[in-house]
């Protein structure tokens, strides 16, 4: 007999906890999935489920409603749409949930579900969908809402038009280089095979001429990037990795030109074109990896794009940039406060978790100042902006001089170090061998010098770097670890001091350990009472209500008679004839010392008991901190009051209370990190959101731990999904392993260079040797780099092949009612 918990949801595949959500016998895990299924079935879109098993994504409760309704505002629509002539418009949304062919099918068949949509085209790789629709037939917000209810919440498209041009350019260069390389190789074959026979003499000049002709586009077009970059470095009196490459390429070409024109020999043009071809392949690989993991996001994607402004003419949506001091604004439930303001309404409940880390909302009354970054919970409120958006405290923190400045890179990246050593080494060897051979003859000396210059190839850097780090980035990405760019791994390998934020980072934001303490003399809650309470709390977005809802067993929702949620005074409701009062903190006397939140429940007029809600620490936290402590010092910074200080110290930090710091404001956190850096430590900061933005930027490596992968902070260098938190120590080990693999790749390349230089210095470097050596070293370096990295990361727990269908962690966390730490 199969237990209920093993039945997978037909829509999203997650296990169903019970059978409360079924439609004609088909099981679902939640109301969201059921609704999505019903919508699709009603529109005749069954193909969605035929293409893949359980292809859906459990839709999030509509927490972005404000964003969607804002889309109907004309100014916002103009900004968001690619094309808009008043009647027909095209909009491109970014849909990170796209992960399989069913998603593509669904997104390209939207016209079957909404009559006003003319066409839609999805891009699997970029995770976007471009929708053309008729504005008089359908509103943009309706499209967005439909997408949201199906689990494909749309986000504004990121501005990345230059990317496409760059990719095209690279592809063109690669194509030209490949074409010329292939033909030059063919034309050079007779030279090697017919060496010595006279039948070749008639054709040699012809083939050489053709080779030169074919090498020109490679020199002038395909390889131009390397020369330009080397030239720039030269002018800045520095040496980067492109300098030795440019020297080598130039030597190859010039020497070949000389050999062909003057000595009627074949030249090294096949090595030349081949080298350019392989280098461009390395570049293309880097770009491809980068595409999947690019995440440059504006903070504007987080703040609502538009806010309702109240004026004499009525209420209007205005874009953020238009808000001035003195504007009357209306903020609805869950909307984020865009600017510092003063509260006009009688009461407000503001959640400042993104600013201070405090998960419990603060109750404000008329006249109180409210700060940007907070969120209004409950009824809509009226406020007067006291500062325009650009000066609000949060953006001030962000625009702080310490952030705008590019992170001080305090160590030279390996590639630059190697580039320098390589260039000098080559020049020295060339000089010495030239000197030696000058005693024999100038012609030989020149030959040897150019041979040395052209055979010395820093392919390890040029190829090893993108392949090692690119492969590592991909594998880490499959397991919920997303890096900003490849240099991050090098930095991560050097971290010797870690600083953790508390709220949302080491604790779950959202999950909580909730226990019910019955009033004296009363028994525990029975099933019907639980159902009643749950029915009430499930309609509130208060974090404590969410915690209570999650802790009570799911059941069919009884009917409501009345419901009123009063900010500051809890919820009053009547369900099935029973009066329920769910009280706020104001009605509960705090008696215990561990200041957990307490919510009093009154049923039918008498007190029934109290819910005690503690914050839950992430699974495996103790192990993570212990592992990390082996290679770095670990400290905790928290914006909270020192609650649970002793518990945290003893459970996770080996009782070392000096590593815990509480009551830290965002500025204090930044200063703390700064001090650590000044004492010559490499600091990694692990935080979760906007309140850490300053410290994340200030640190050498900023890691943001997020449970909803769409809500991250742009100040971080690494995004860690909450479900992969236990892999944090493995991440650092992987970074170190990657750097070691890179070093090994350098050694491999040195081996090839030694062989090549041996031939060159002894004056025996023929085009044949060079033609064999170049591709051999390039290909073996590429293979070595990617295979070794793959194996090492697999051993550390990041195998490349994971159940392909999930590139993201689950968005709806599976409720853990038992705590296992």
């Amino acid at each position, binding site marked *: 007999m199969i237990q209920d918990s093993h039945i997978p949801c037909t829509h999203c595949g997650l296990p169903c906890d019970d059978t409360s959500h079924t439609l004609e016998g088909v099981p679902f895990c939640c109301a969201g999935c059921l609704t999505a299924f019903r919508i699709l079935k009603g529109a*005749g879109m069954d*193909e969605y489920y035929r*293409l893949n098993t359980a292809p859906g994504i459990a839709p999030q409760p509509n927490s972005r409603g404000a964003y969607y309704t804002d889309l109907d505002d004309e100014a916002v629509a103009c900004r968001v749409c690619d094309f808009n002539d008043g009647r027909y418009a095209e909009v491109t949304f970014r849909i990170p949930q796209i992960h*399989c*062919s069913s998603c*593509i*099918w669904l997104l*390209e*068949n939207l016209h*079957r579900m909404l009559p006003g949509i003319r066409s839609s085209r*999805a*891009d*699997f*790789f*970029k995770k976007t969908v471009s929708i053309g629709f008729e504005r008089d037939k359908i509103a943009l917000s309706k499209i967005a809402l439909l997408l949201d209810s199906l689990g494909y919440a749309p986000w504004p498209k990121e501005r990345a038009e230059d990317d*496409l041009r760059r*990719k*095209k350019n690279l*592809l*063109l260069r690669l*194509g*030209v280089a490949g*074409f010329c390389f292939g*033909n030059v190789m063919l*034309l050079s074959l007779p030279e090697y095979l017919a060496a010595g026979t006279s*039948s070749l003499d*008639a*054709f040699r000049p*012809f083939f050489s001429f*053709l080779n030169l002709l074919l090498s020109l586009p490679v020199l002038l077009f395909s390889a131009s990037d390397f020369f330009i970059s080397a030239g720039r470095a030269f002018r800045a009196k520095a040496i980067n990795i492109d300098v030795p490459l440019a020297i080598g390429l130039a030597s190859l070409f010039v020497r070949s030109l000389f050999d062909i024109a003057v000595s009627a020999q074949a030249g090294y043009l096949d090595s030349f074109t081949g080298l350019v071809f392989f280098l461009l392949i390395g570049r293309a690989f880097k770009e491809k990896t980068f595409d999947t993991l690019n995440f440059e996001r504006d903070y504007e994607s987080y703040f609502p794009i538009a806010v309702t402004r109240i004026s004499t003419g009525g209420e209007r949506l205005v874009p953020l940039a238009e808000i001035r001091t003195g504007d009357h604004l209306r903020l609805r439930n869950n909307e984020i406060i865009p600017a510092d303001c003063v509260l006009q309404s009688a009461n407000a409940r503001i959640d400042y978790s993104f600013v201070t880390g405090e998960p419990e909302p603060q109750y404000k009354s008329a006249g109180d100042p409210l700060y940007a970054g907070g969120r209004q919970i409950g009824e809509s409120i009226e406020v007067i902006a006291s500062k325009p958006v650009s000066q609000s405290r949060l953006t001030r923190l962000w625009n702080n001089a310490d952030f705008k400045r590019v992170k001080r890179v305090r160590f030279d990246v390996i590639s630059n170090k190697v580039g320098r050593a390589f260039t000098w080494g080559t020049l020295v060897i060339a000089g010495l061998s030239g000197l030696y051979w000058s005693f024999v003859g100038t012609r030989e000396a020149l030959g040897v010098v150019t041979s040395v210059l052209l055979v010395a190839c820093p392919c390890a850097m040029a190829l090893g770097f993108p392949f090692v780090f690119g492969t590592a980035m991909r594998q880490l990405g499959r397991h919920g670890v997303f890096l900003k760019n490849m240099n991050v791994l090098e930095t991560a390998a050097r971290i010797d001091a870690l600083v953790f934020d508390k709220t949302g980072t080491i604790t779950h934001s959202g999950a909580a350990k909730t226990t019910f303490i019955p009033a004296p003399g009363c028994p525990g809650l029975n099933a019907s009472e639980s159902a009643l309470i749950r029915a009430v709390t499930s309609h509130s977005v208060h974090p404590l209500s969410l915690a209570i809802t999650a802790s009570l067993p799911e059941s069919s929702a009884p009917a409501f008679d009345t419901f009123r949620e009063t900010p500051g005074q809890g919820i009053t409701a009547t369900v099935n004839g029973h009066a329920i009062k769910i009280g706020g903190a104001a009605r509960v006397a705090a008696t215990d010392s561990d200041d957990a939140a307490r919510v009093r429940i009154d049923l039918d007029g008498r007190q029934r008991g109290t819910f005690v809600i503690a914050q839950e620490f992430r699974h495996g936290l103790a192990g993570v901190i212990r592992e990390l402590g082996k290679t770095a010092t670990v400290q905790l910074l928290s914006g909270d009051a020192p609650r649970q200080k002793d518990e945290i110290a003893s459970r996770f930090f080996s009782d070392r209370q000096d590593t815990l710091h509480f009551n830290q404001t965002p500025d204090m956190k930044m200063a703390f990190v700064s001090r650590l850096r000044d004492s010559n430590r490499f600091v990694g900061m692990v935080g979760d959101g906007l309140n850490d933005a300053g410290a994340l930027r200030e640190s050498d490596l900023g890691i943001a731990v997020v449970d909803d992968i769409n809500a991250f902070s742009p100040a971080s260098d690494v995004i860690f999904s909450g479900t992969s938190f236990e892999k944090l120590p493995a991440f650092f080990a992987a970074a170190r392993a990657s750097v070691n693999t890179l070093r090994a790749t350098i050694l491999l390349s040195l081996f090839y260079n030694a062989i090549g230089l041996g031939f060159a210095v002894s004056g025996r470097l023929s085009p044949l040797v060079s033609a064999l050596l170049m591709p051999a070293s390039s290909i073996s370096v590429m293979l070595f780099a990617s295979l070794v990295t793959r194996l090492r990361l697999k051993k550390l727990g990041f195998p490349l092949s994971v159940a392909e269908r999930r590139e993201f962690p689950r968005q709806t966390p599976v409720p853990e009612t038992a705590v296992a730490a």
Partner: protein
Amino acid sequence: MSVLFLLIAASLFCAAGFLGAFLWAVRNGQYDDAATPALRILMDDGVAAAQNESGNHSDSP
């Protein structure tokens, strides 16, 4: 053997034609999205079958 001159010239000319085609294809945006068309192949032309009520059934591939 001197025909080789002509042959090589001719084949290079032909090959250059293909290179030109490649360059045109890239510029035309045909390589912009390499992943999605692979998924579209697997989808049936359900639209035509569902909306066409006059009984013109599309053959399933």
